[in-house]
């Protein structure tokens, strides 16, 4: 019984502390909606291996691939729970394959939208928990459309995109 009462006291203290932390955070916050307020003025999109694509500089572009006769086309698409399906956004693949480069990872395949959402969620959760900085370009991915007949892997496509971005300075 003493142990139960001790447990009850600890739970009471935890509840009081958590409520106090929230009230304190509320008083410190500039206003409701501060979490939603994000700088969208020109972030960098992480292509991995220390290659960054400025969002403001990101029109549609062609990226040459070593083994393929025709270049791959690259454009930016929005990722997130409230965005349209990135697989359907931008250029529709006509016989070719689509590879997404998002947060340094190259992704392709059937459940690519779910995987993009999972990475997006992990990023948002780490920002909310204060584990990583609020990066305005978190919700943009590079969509690489490989031409039909090109057998380059997703990793090859991502590497070619990094080379193209670095070469443009």
């Amino acid at each position, binding site marked *: *019984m003493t142990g139960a009462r001790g447990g009850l006291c600890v*739970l009471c203290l935890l509840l009081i502390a958590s409520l106090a932390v929230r*009230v304190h955070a509320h008083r410190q*916050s500039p206003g*409701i909606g501060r979490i939603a307020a994000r700088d969208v003025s020109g972030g960098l999109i992480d292509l991995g291996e220390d290659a960054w694509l400025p969002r403001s500089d990101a029109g549609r572009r062609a990226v040459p691939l070593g083994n393929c006769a025709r270049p791959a086309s690259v454009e930016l698409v929005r990722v997130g729970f*409230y965005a349209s399906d990135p697989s359907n956004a931008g250029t529709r693949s006509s016989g070719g394959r689509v590879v997404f480069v998002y947060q340094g990872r190259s992704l392709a395949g059937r459940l690519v939208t*779910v995987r993009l959402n999972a990475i997006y969620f992990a990023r948002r959760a780490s920002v909310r928990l204060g584990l990583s900085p609020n990066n305005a370009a978190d919700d943009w991915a590079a969509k690489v459309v490989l031409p039909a007949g090109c057998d380059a892997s997703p990793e090859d496509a991502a590497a070619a995109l990094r080379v193209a971005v670095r070469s443009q300075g």
Partner: protein
Amino acid sequence: MDGSAGERAGRPIGAARTRGAPGPDRAALYIVLLFSCGTCLSAVLQRRLLENLPSAHNAVELSVGEAFGLAAILSLAFAGSRGRLVLSGLDIAILIVAALAWFVPEQHGIYLAMTLAGGWFVSRRRADRTSVDIGQIWLALSVYELWGKLLFKLCYQVIEVAEVGMISLVGRGFYGRLHVDGASLSVRDDWSIVILEGCSSFHNLSLTVVIWLSILKIAAHGADRAAFRALGLSACLVVAINVARILAMLPSPASYAFWHDGLGSTLVALGSVLAAIVPIARSVQGRAGCLGAQLR
């Protein structure tokens, strides 16, 4: 008084068992109630103080599941009809560790507390059925508030295809020239709506399950075939109400404003809650009527 004495005296079996059961351990009772209320209170405070205030529609929708879950826990803890509530030292330690999730700075993440505690209470073999029932309610609440929403967000673009297909199938029976383009629906050239994750017809199904389970626990009623039929009916009604709501938004911006943000959205929320309550309540009431007739 035991069950057989109750039958001889012509009293309902459930009531005789309730009176015959020993009273709950006060400290265990208060710990369970504090944990349940503390988790809900932390989530409410988080969304009221630190996150965008939801619309009236969301406010109704979000608090109903918590209210039903808490009512079921109160009923289970105080009635004691399924055995005396007993907590071991390890149970209390698990509850304290789980309560650390009260500090998560996100309203849904706080329900990690109920996932951990509910998983522990349900997975362990226990003498008292009350703890298992309370664990089930905690798990249902955490699925409703956290895991269901997360899974839905991750997979919505996949679900969207089926969702829009279903809405367009029904909508063609009402609108002659319903046009579908991806997630966009329109019945006229200058106005269209886009179905986003928050508007999905399947969004309230986990709330329906929480209400269904809570009513079953409050009524001390098992999940039999009739109960599952009632759950299926509720799910169909909830989906149908939301499909009707989305179709009602199509004619004009004014109808969109009414059904999406205005009084219409509140009516839909209340209608969905009633659709979740009425079938299972009628099922439970019908079963109680049959039992009463047999005893007479």
